[in-house]
C-alpha cells in the first residue's frame, strides 16, 4: 500500500480500548490545574470591579502592601505597554486599564503566603470608581441612545451611521433573494433571541507561575492551548516567547473556554514582583463573572418555501454581543446559518456588538448553535404551515457533494443526506408521542479546523513507542492518537504512550479547538509514524543488503518485497529497535504542518419534549444524536462527544442564562442559580455514528467535538413549541417564559 492511499479496513482504529489516562483520573492521581505546588509558593487573589462600567480614578494598595504575609500587589502598571490588536484586548481583559468594562473585570491582584491572607489583603485594596452608564443587552447596545463603551473600536467593515458599539460587520451569500422570495408559496420571517451561556467546565481556571528577574519563566496551567498561553503571556509581560516554558495540566473540561488566558499573566506578574512562585485558582463565581461565556444574540430570519418543500430563498441578520471587546463570532453565525441547505438565493449579515459584559470566549462551534435555532425554527414553522414532514423537507434541500455552500465554497464529500436518512429510518422518528409531548428535529453544521500541528514519535529499545503531541487532551484524544499510531505501525495499542508535551519540547501547536485534534494531531501522528517506518525499513534494508525500496512494512514488521520477497525473515519492530544505537542511532518520526483538509461536519438531532402546561416545565424523555464522524477512531469517545453536545445544548435551551440586574451586575454567578442540567434532568442520549470518510485525512477522520452542540437549541425549541402549541422565540425556554407564552396564547 502506498503511504498516501486512504485506508478503509482497520485493525485497531474503530475499537474501544480503555483510555490511557483513565486510571489516573478515577484514582485522583491525575494532576489538574490546581494540583501543582512549588517550594516557597505564594497564593494570589484578584480584586474585581463591582461595577458594569466605571472609570478607575485611583487604586490605593498601601494597606494591602502593609499587611503581614503580603509579598506583591500588581495593577496594570506591572504589565507591558504599547500592545495593539488582540494582544491589547487580552491584556485589557485580564487587567483593566483606565476603565472597568464589566462586573467582575480584574483591576488589581495580590500575592501572599496563604490563600486566606491573599483574600483578606485583596479586601484592603481600595479602588475609587467613577460609575459610568452601562448596557448589557445586544439590541439596546446598538440603539441610538446606548452609552458608548469604547469609541474607536469599530473597524472599517462597519457601515456608516451605526452606533460605535457595533464594531465589525459581515455580509455574504449568493443569488437574488428578492427574486427567490417572489417564487415562494409561503415566506415566513421571524425574530429570535438567545442569552449568553457559559461553557461550564467543572475545573475552574488554575495555574502556578514562576517568573524571574532574568525574564525566564515556567507556567503550569489548565488550558486548551499552551503555545497560545505562552505567546500571549510573553507579550503581556514583555518577555521573549521562548523564555517562558508552559506545561498544560490535565484539563477538567474546556469546551472552548480555555482557549485563552485570564489569570495566567496575572500570576506571572505577581511572581515577577514577589520573586516567588505564585498559584492562582479561580472560584466558580470568578469563572462565571470574568471568563468567557458565549455571545448573546438577536436574530431575524426569513425563508421562502414552495408547497413541495423546496426552499427558494433565505436571509438572516445576526447580531451578537460578545462583551466589551470585539470578537463575537458573528461571521461564523452568519456563515453556518444556512450551510445545511443547497440554496440558489441566500444572504446573511452579521453584527459584532460590544456591551458591558465579560469578553466572550469560544464555546463549541462558536456562533453556530444560535444560527441553527433561528433558521431551523423558521423551517419548522414552514413545515407546520405547509403540512410537510420536517425530515423530508430537509432531505429535499440538503447540501451534498458539489453544492455551492451558503458561505461560498463547494462541498466535497459530506454526510448530511446520510444523517437525514438515518434520522428518517431511526425508530425514534416514528415512535408514537404521548399526551403533552412534541418532537423536534434540526440539522447542524460546523466547519472544523486544521491548524498548526507538530508531533514527534520516538521508538524505545524494546519496540514500544512514545508519542508527543502538543494538543491538550480534552476528549480522550490520547486514546485516539495511540489507536492511529498502532494502526499505522501495526503494534498493539498498549505499546504506545501518548504524552502532551510542553512548549519547550515541540514546535508550535494550535489550540485544542475547532474539533481539530483527532483530525490534525491524528494526521500528524500517522505521518510521524510513517516517517519512523521509513527509517526502520532503511535499517532493515541495510541489514539485509538490499535497496530501501525493496522493503515494505507489514503488521509491525519490515518485510523484504519485490524480487527479494521471501529472502529474509521479517524483522519485527523490537528487533530493529533493539540495536538501533549501533545501526544509525535512535529512531524517531516527526511531522509538522498546517493541514487544510479538516472536512466539514453535519449532524441531525431528534428530540422529544414534554411540557407541563400548568407550570411551563419541560422534560426531555428521548433524544437521539446522528452525526457524521468521517471515521470514528474510538467510537465510545465519539459517542461521548455527541452526548456531551446534546447535554450542554439541553442546558442552553432550557435553563442556562446570564442574568443581569438593572445595575449591570451578574445575578447568578453560582451553580445554584446558573442552572446547568443535573444528571437526572437528562435521558439516556442515543447516538448514531454516520461514517462518510473525510478525503483530507488518511483514515477519513472528521472532527466531532463541536457539531453536536449545533442542533440541540433548535431541535428542542421545535419540540417544545410543538408540545406547548406555541412558538418559542427566546432562549432559555425556562418555565416562567413558557408559562407566559402559554398564557399570552390563551
Amino acid at each position, binding site marked *: 500500500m502506498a503511504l498516501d492511499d486512504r485506508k478503509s479496513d482497520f485493525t485497531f482504529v474503530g475499537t474501544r480500548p480503555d483510555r490511557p489516562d483513565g486510571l489516573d483520573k478515577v484514582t485522583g492521581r491525575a494532576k489538574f490545574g490546581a494540583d501543582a505546588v512549588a517550594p516557597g509558593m505564594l497564593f494570589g487573589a484578584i480584586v474585581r470591579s463591582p461595577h458594569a462600567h466605571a472609570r478607575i480614578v485611583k487604586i490605593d494598595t498601601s494597606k494591602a502592601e502593609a499587611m503581614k504575609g503580603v509579598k506583591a500587589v500588581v495593577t496594570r502598571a506591572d504589565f507591558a505597554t504599547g500592545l495593539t490588536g488582540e494582544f491589547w484586548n487580552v491584556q485589557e481583559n485580564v487587567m483593566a486599564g483606565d476603565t472597568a468594562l464589566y462586573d467582575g473585570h480584574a483591576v488589581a491582584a495580590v500575592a501572599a503566603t496563604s490563600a486566606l491572607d491573599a483574600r483578606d489583603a485583596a479586601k484592603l485594596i481600595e479602588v475609587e470608581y467613577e460609575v459610568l452608564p452601562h448596557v448589557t443587552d445586544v439590541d439596546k447596545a446598538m440603539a441610538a441612545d446606548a452609552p458608548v463603551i469604547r469609541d474607536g473600536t469599530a473597524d472599517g467593515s462597519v457601515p456608516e451611521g451605526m452606533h460605535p458599539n457595533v464594531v465589525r460587520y459581515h455580509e455574504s451569500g449568493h443569488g437574488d433573494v428578492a427574486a427567490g422570495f417572489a417564487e415562494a408559496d409561503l415566506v415566513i420571517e421571524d425574530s429570535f433571541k438567545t442569552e449568553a451561556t457559559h461553557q461550564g467546565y467543572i475545573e475552574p481556571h488554575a495555574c502556578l507561575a514562576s517568573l524571574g528577574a532574568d525574564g525566564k519563566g515556567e507556567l503550569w496551567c489548565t488550558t486548551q492551548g499552551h503555545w497560545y498561553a505562552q505567546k500571549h503571556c510573553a507579550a503581556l509581560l514583555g518577555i521573549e516567547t521562548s523564555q517562558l516554558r508552559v506545561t498544560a495540566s490535565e484539563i477538567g473540561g474546556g469546551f472552548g473556554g480555555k482557549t485563552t488566558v485570564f489569570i495566567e499573566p496575572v500570576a506571572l506578574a505577581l511572581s515577577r514582583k514577589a520573586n516567588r512562585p505564585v498559584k492562582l485558582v479561580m472560584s466558580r463565581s470568578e469563572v462565571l463573572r470574568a471568563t468567557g461565556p458565549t455571545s448573546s444574540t438577536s436574530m431575524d430570519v426569513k425563508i421562502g418555501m414552495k408547497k413541495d418543500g423546496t426552499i427558494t430563498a433565505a436571509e438572516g441578520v445576526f447580531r451578537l454581543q460578545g462583551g466589551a471587546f470585539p470578537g463575537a463570532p458573528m461571521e461564523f453565525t452568519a456563515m453556518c446559518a444556512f450551510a445545511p441547505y443547497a440554496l440558489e438565493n441566500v444572504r446573511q449579515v452579521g453584527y459584532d456588538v460590544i456591551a458591558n459584559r465579560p469578553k466572550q470566549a469560544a464555546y463549541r462551534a462558536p456562533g453556530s448553535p444560535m444560527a441553527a435555532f433561528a433558521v431551523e425554527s423558521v423551517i419548522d414553522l414552514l413545515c407546520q404551515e405547509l403540512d410537510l414532514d420536517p425530515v423530508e423537507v430537509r432531505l429535499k434541500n440538503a447540501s451534498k457533494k458539489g453544492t455551492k455552500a451558503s458561505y461560498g465554497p463547494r462541498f466535497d464529500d459530506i454526510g448530511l443526506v446520510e444523517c437525514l436518512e438515518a434520522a428518517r429510518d431511526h425508530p425514534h422518528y416514528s415512535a408514537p408521542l404521548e399526551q403533552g409531548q412534541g418532537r423536534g428535529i434540526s440539522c447542524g453544521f460546523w466547519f472544523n479546523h486544521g491548524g498548526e500541528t507538530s508531533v514527534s514519535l520516538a521508538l524505545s529499545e524494546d519496540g514500544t513507542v512514545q508519542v508527543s503531541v502538543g494538543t491538550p487532551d480534552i476528549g480522550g484524544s490520547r486514546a485516539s492518537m495511540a489507536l492511529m499510531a498502532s494502526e499505522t505501525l501495526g503494534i498493539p495499542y498498549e505499546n504506545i504512550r501518548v504524552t502532551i508535551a510542553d512548549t519547550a519540547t515541540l514546535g508550535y501547536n494550535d489550540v485544542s479547538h475547532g474539533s481539530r485534534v483527532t483530525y490534525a494531531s491524528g494526521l500528524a501522528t500517522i505521518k510521524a509514524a510513517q516517517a519512523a517506518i521509513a527509517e526502520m525499513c532503511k535499517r532493515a534494508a541495510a541489514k539485509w543488503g538490499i535497496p530501501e525500496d525493496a522493503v515494505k512494512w507489514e503488521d509491525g514488521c519490515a518485510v523484504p518485497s519485490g524480487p527479494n520477497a521471501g529472502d529474509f525473515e521479517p524483522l519485527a519492530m523490537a528487533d530493529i529497535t533493539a540495536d538501533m544505537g549501533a545501526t544509525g542511532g535512535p529512531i524517531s518520526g516527526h511531522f509538522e504542518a498546517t493541514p487544510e483538509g479538516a472536512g466539514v461536519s453535519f449532524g441531525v438531532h431528534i428530540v422529544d419534549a414534554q411540557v407541563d402546561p400548568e407550570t411551563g416545565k419541560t422534560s426531555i424523555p428521548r433524544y437521539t444524536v446522528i452525526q457524521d464522524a468521517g471515521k470514528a477512531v474510538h467510537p465510545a469517545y465519539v459517542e461521548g462527544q455527541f452526548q456531551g453536545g446534546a447535554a450542554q445544548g439541553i442546558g442552553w435551551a432550557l435553563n442556562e442564562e446570564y442574568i443581569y440586574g438593572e445595575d449591570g451586575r451578574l445575578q447568578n454567578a453560582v451553580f445554584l442559580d446558573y442552572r446547568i442540567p*443535573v444528571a437526572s434532568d437528562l435521558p439516556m442520549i442515543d447516538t448514531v455514528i454516520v461514517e462518510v470518510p473525510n478525503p483530507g485525512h488518511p483514515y477519513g477522520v472528521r472532527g466531532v467535538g463541536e457539531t453536536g452542540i449545533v442542533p440541540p437549541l433548535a431541535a428542542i425549541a421545535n419540540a417544545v413549541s410543538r408540545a406547548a402549541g406555541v412558538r418559542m422565540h427566546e432562549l432559555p425556554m425556562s418555565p416562567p417564559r413558557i408559562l407566559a407564552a402559554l398564557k399570552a396564547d390563551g
Partner: protein
Amino acid sequence: MNYHSPASFAEASALAENADGVTRFLAGGTDVLVQLRADIVTPDTLIDIKKIDGVSDITQNDDGSWTLGVAVTGAEMTEHASLSRDWPGVVEAMDLVGSTQVQGRATLTGNLCNGSPAADSVPAMVAAGVTVTVTGADGSREVAVGDIPTGPGRTSLAKGELVSAVNIPARGDNAGDAYLRFIPRTEMDIAVVGVAVSLRLDGDTVTEARVSLGAVAPTVLLVQECADAIIGSTLDDAALDALAAAASAACNPITDKRGTVEFRTDVAGVLAKRAAKIAYARAKGETVKGDHA
C-alpha cells in the same frame, strides 16, 4: 474565629450569650460552612452542637408525638420507617434538601434557623404543626416553627437562645401530609415555590387542614383561606380550584432571577392542588411517592 463544642444546651446558650460579634451554631454546616467558604459570613464564634447528648436521637413519645434531636440529619429521617409512615410530607421535604452528600449532614433545625424563605422543610413543618424547644439563659420555651423566621436570614431567637429539640405532633388516624416544590430542574435547586398540605379525613370528607406556602413571601405562610377552601369538601374540583385561588391570592412574592411574581403566584395554586391530592390519598392509606413537581 473561636470554635466551641459544648456538652449541654445550657453551656451552648451561655457561650452564645457571652460571645462578641457574629455567632453561628454548627449543626450540619451545609449553610454555615458554605457561607464561610464563599466569604458571605465569617463567624467570630462557632458553636458546634453535635457533641451534646441526645442530639442525634429520633424518639417517638408515648402519646405518639415525636422528638427529634437538633443534629438528626435528613438521611436519618428518610431511613426512619415509622417516622416516614407518620409524616411523609415532612420527611420528603427534608429529603429534597441537597444531594446525598448534603443529606448526610443537613438538619431540620439548620434549615429553619438559616432563615431562607425558600427552605424546603419549613412549610412542611408549619403544615404539620411542628414546634421547636428554644433554650436560653432563662430556661426553655416551646415555639411554633412558623414563629421562628422573621425575614430573609433573620429569626426571632434572641442572643443566647438556640433550638434544643424539634417536636412533631402525634399523627393520629386518617391523616396525611405532602410537600411539593417547584424547581426548573429535577435536583440541586432552590424552591421557586413550595407548598405543604396536612389534612385529616372523616370518610371522604376533609375535617382538618393546614396549608403552608414557601418562597412566595419574606417568610413562610400558613394560609387559613386555603384550609377553609378544602375543609368540609371531598377534595372535588371546585374545592381544589378554590384552594388554588386562595393559595395564589396569599402570595406576596418578588420577581428575581428564580422566577417572576406572576409565575410564582400561578404555580403556588397549581402545587397546592397537587400537594392536597397527595395528602388526601395518603390520608386514605395509599402510599404515594412525592415527586419533584
